[in-house]
């Protein structure tokens, strides 16, 4: 597993939640949106264990419904619990990302 994959694993839940917060999506759309956001080496399949876990925790709700064209899709939307969890996660992330970025940048200027 690459360093990047390992780093991502911890924050993927938050990334998925933040996409679902904007609009309800189904799996393939979600993976497309993650790639569009620049996370293009998240293997597409990894979102499904994440989606199952988020459903089990009650953060998202999945609903199978027919799409306008083609097969039935399972659309995911955020629950109130999910909204609260995402808020907490975003706060935690800001607390980590700021200091880590500063540390990494300081490393460069000192060299």
């Amino acid at each position, binding site marked *: 597993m690459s360093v990047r994959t390992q780093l991502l694993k911890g924050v993927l839940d938050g990334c998925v939640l933040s996409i679902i917060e904007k609009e309800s999506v*189904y*799996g*393939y759309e979600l*993976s497309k949106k993650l790639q569009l956001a620049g996370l293009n080496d998240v*293997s*597409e*399949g990894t979102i*499904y*264990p994440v989606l*199952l*876990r988020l459903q*089990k925790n009650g953060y998202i709700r*999945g*609903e*199978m419904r027919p799409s306008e064209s083609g*097969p*039935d*899709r*399972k659309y995911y939307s955020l629950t109130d619990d999910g909204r609260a969890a995402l808020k907490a996660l975003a706060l935690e992330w800001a607390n980590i990302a700021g200091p880590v970025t500063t540390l990494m940048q300081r490393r460069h200027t000192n060299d």
Partner: protein
Amino acid sequence: MISSKQLISENNERRKLLTKENEKYYDDMLVYIRLKAKSSDQESEEVLMELLNHLIDGQQDGKTAADIFGDDPKGYADELISELPKAHLRTRLPFLSYLLINLISIFLLVRGAALFIGGFFKPVDATVFIVKSTLITVYWLLAIAFLIWFILHLVENALFKKVSNWKDVLKAGLVGIISFGLGTALLYLIPNFGPSFSFGWLPSLVSGAILWLISFWTKKKFNLF
């Protein structure tokens, strides 16, 4: 909500859209998850449908199953299974009781028919020794449960492999013969002793028929399959 039955038939239809290579990859995952997931059918069928739709969409963009789900299908399926919620034993109870009642009813029907037909040729002994019969019934239930578990275990191990294994077929056959032989041997090995009663062909047939109707009703009532 779309029922698990509908999802299964839709899955069967849509799988035809897969390329040969992707179908092999997906089929192994499908059988493995259906066998191993302890979740409700609804939950496992929904995720199986999502994976299939994703694979079909990806296929149109020129991706293979390995591109999407990784090079380790078994590991990926295990990851999914570990995230699926586990169903309570209570939800499986109707199916397990259906199986038990159906098995016993068939045994009683066959026994009744055999006693009836056998009676034309020679005098038959319809005596049932309670202790002996209980032991043998318990043996058969355990043996059948073990056989099912053993064969499912072999199937799980055979999935995701390139070559089919004739040794597995031999193993399954051997275990089947041994458990059947042991069951037959028990008939002679356990002596007739203790309390007994006569249970002729007619009561055997009638009780078998009643139990069969009950199992049929259970199946309809709980919409088992």
